[in-house]
């Protein structure tokens, strides 16, 4: 519908491509030449080698390297002369100071900002940076009332940050007119996003991705700096016994049940790790795999490979996505149990999906998938008591979608159902605050044995796990966030057997330890500089 309405606009705009290299408003950053000049001014290769110690990949698009990335995208390799020339063409006013913001509190970010500042000043662009405090989200992403002309509702000119979505489409879907604080309405982008988010066919997806990447990178809507890698570290005591490595921030077929650890003096296999709960167990619907607890306490319907491509059914006996990608059918395995021994039913899965629709902070792709279900809208606004698009018969669940979601299978590789009987009374707005999250009951290969909230968490194998009982006797998780500040201390002291980090400095230190090994993993996690292209007042 929308596409048909927008088509004439796209055509008109195609004529205007010549005009694109002009400032669109009073903000010089709306001029693509200025943005390109900034890109040329920064020597990302040197930064990658030195500051990032080679532990990153220089980016030439939002999208990480892989089949969905168009070969030969413009790279903007370091060329200060070109930068100066472009700035001259764009009549850059050298007295203007750009205001750059960021929200990380680590030393590396400050160092990177300092380096970028130095590079920019080299070509005659003044830039000052500051860390955002307080309500970061609002300061970054408040969209202007008038998405066409602005003025900008945020103060900054440049923002450094990262985007690491689960589905590649999300990299671009956020540029849709009215959603973002930085880009004036662009019909071409809108129309491409519409195609992107409604195509399930791989070939068609590739085509539109290529098109989109090319447009975004040529115009340099946003400057991708580098692709962050994740670094899995393991002690030499740990053996995955053939289990594969993959994106450690999400769930994949890592076969944790087969892992072994050198037994301790008592003959017990104990694996020490971090990301244990600090005040509560973070629920798995927002960060499905960032914490060890969410990985091993909960099970998913479908499994996927290390690159998160769906591969096989897991809790499901089988699954089937119809040709038009609008109907997904599962059948649950027989005899599935929660950790407390009660049965997992198909009815419970339905209740879970309905709850997920009402919980405000869940992972965006889950939200998208569920809200595309038939009758989801009616259920959300209260006019229906249940979602009509979910049909249950015995162990079989049939999901009918009103709209095609290219990531529907991905959702079910990450989304974990929860036991209904503990959460029946939950207020969706305070989902995370429910007492359940002090000692959750799940369906994964490990279950909670002892929670000592500020000291440690002990998890032991779930004796009725449907893929066999796990071999490691105890997983001990010490409390930390996903970027564990005490990682190096604890690893040197030998009290960490598994974990992952994105902190380059930590990786270097881990690599220097004889008893640890580090395995880099490519993840969709792009660090970039956003340009605020709206006019400011």
């Amino acid at each position, binding site marked *: 519908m929308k596409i048909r309405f927008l088509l004439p606009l796209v055509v008109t705009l195609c004529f205007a491509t010549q005009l694109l290299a002009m400032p669109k408003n009073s903000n010089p950053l709306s001029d693509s030449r200025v943005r390109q000049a900034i890109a040329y001014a920064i020597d990302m290769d040197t930064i990658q080698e030195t500051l990032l110690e080679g532990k990153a990949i220089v980016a030439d698009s939002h999208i990480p390297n892989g089949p969905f990335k168009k070969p030969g995208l413009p790279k903007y390799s370091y060329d200060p002369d070109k930068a100066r020339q472009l700035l001259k063409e764009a009549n850059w006013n050298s007295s203007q100071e750009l205001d750059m913001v960021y929200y990380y509190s680590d030393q590396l970010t400050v160092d990177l900002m300092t380096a970028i500042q130095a590079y920019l000043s080299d070509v005659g662009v003044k830039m000052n940076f500051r860390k955002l405090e307080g309500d970061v*989200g609002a300061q970054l992403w408040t969209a202007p009332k008038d998405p066409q002309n602005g003025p900008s509702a945020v103060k900054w000119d440049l923002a450094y940050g990262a*985007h690491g979505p689960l589905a590649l489409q999300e990299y671009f879907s956020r540029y849709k007119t009215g959603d973002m604080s930085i880009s004036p309405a662009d019909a071409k982008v809108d129309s491409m996003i519409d195609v992107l988010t409604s195509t399930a066919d791989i070939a068609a997806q590739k085509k539109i991705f290529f098109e989109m990447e090319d447009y975004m990178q040529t115009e340099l809507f946003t400057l991708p700096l580098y692709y962050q890698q994740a670094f899995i570290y393991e002690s030499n005591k740990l053996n995955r016994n053939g289990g594969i490595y993959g994106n450690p921030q999400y769930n994949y077929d890592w076969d944790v049940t087969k892992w072994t650890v050198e037994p301790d003096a008592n003959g017990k296999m104990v694996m020490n790790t971090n990301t244990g709960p600090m005040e509560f167990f973070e629920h798995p619907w927002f960060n499905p795999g960032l914490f060890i607890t969410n990985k091993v306490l909960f099970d998913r319907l479908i499994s996927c490979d290390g690159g998160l491509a769906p591969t096989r059914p897991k809790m499901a006996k089988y699954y089937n996505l119809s040709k038009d990608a609008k109907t997904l059918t599962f059948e649950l395995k027989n005899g599935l149990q929660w950790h407390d021994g009660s049965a997992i039913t198909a009815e419970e899965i339905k209740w879970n999906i309905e709850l997920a629709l009402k919980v405000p902070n869940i992972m965006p792709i889950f939200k998208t998938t569920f809200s595309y279900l038939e009758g989801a809208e009616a259920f959300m606004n209260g006019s229906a008591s249940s979602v009509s698009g979910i049909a249950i018969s015995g162990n079989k669940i049939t999901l009918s979608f009103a709209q095609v979601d290219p990531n529907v299978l991905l959702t079910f590789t990450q989304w974990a159902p929860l036991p209904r009987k503990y959460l029946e009374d939950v207020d969706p707005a305070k989902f995370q605050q429910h007492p359940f999250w002090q000692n959750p009951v799940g369906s994964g290969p490990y279950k909670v044995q002892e929670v000592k909230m500020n000291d*440690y968490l002990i998890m032991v194998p779930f004796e009725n796990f449907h893929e066999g009982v796990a071999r490691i006797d105890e997983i001990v998780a010490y409390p930390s966030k996903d970027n564990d500040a005490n990682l190096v201390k604890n690893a040197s*002291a030998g009290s960490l057997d598994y974990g992952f980090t994105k902190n380059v400095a930590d990786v270097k230190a881990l690599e220097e330890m004889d008893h640890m090994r580090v395995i880099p993993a490519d993840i969709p996690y792009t660090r970039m500089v956003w340009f605020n292209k709206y006019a400011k007042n």
Partner: protein
Amino acid sequence: MFVYFTRRLLYLIPMLLGISFLIYLGLELTPGDILSYLLPPEAIADLKPEELIAMREALGLNDPFIVRYLYWLGGILQGDFGYSLASGVPISKLVLERIPATLELSIAALLFSTLFGVILGSISALKRGSLMDNSLTVFGMIGVSIPEFIFGLIALVVFALQLEWLPVGKRLMPGYDSYWDHMPHLVMPAMVLGLIMTAGVMRYTRSSMLDSLNKEFIRTARSKGVPEWRVNFIHGLRVALIPVVVLIGFRLPMLIGGTVIIEQVFQWPGIGDLFVNAVRGQNYPLVMMISFLSVTAVLFASFLIDLLTALLDPRIKLE
């Protein structure tokens, strides 16, 4: 005496009321948003403004100020310290869980610093002007001049990582059954915090002892022909201790403050750690309650110190 202390205790009430109001007022002015703590910044980027507003409303962040203050105060009076915004866990539970750790650390550090400070300070005063006195004074000064976290980190690298004498940090570990099992974990944080505080106690004991040794009653004691140790300790130190105890009372806030940084260095799961996390996460109720409770603790402890001073100094009973 009973009247004096009852009065002293009653006096705490308006004080605490004032403090509670100030704390609440102060924290209301924080620009932070609990959502920034609940969600990583990347995630907020993906949420729509109306979703953000709905989430704020649900968390009760939109009531008028005085209403929120009265609710809060009323809650405290009924023993309801509110709930952590992050987890929904009662704050009383969170704090109670952490109290043993902080109490352990601060009492150990307090005992250590008092014992060593008083002993070294007295030696310094008795050997005034000697090499011993001068080196103790200089060491004490160096001690208070090194930032505590550097001191802690170096101790950690040397004793935990290089020599492997002591655990690198944390408190309780799986398999610890007896209360004493985790004592090796306590050694380093308590020593580091204790040593930092020792310098102050030592310095103060020295000057108080010098003061006391210059008093007339010291000459009186000597004129009776009693041995020197008795003159110095039973008469000199005993009187010198009174201001030292008062000073330790004054330094209690410093002790609690010191735990904030030391707990971070040694992953000690105490109140300080909880507080830093709460500040970073702008978890208002938690920050408010911890501040309030720490001041209450300080006031109550100084009250106890007053009691102790009265026991040490018979002159106070008349007042």
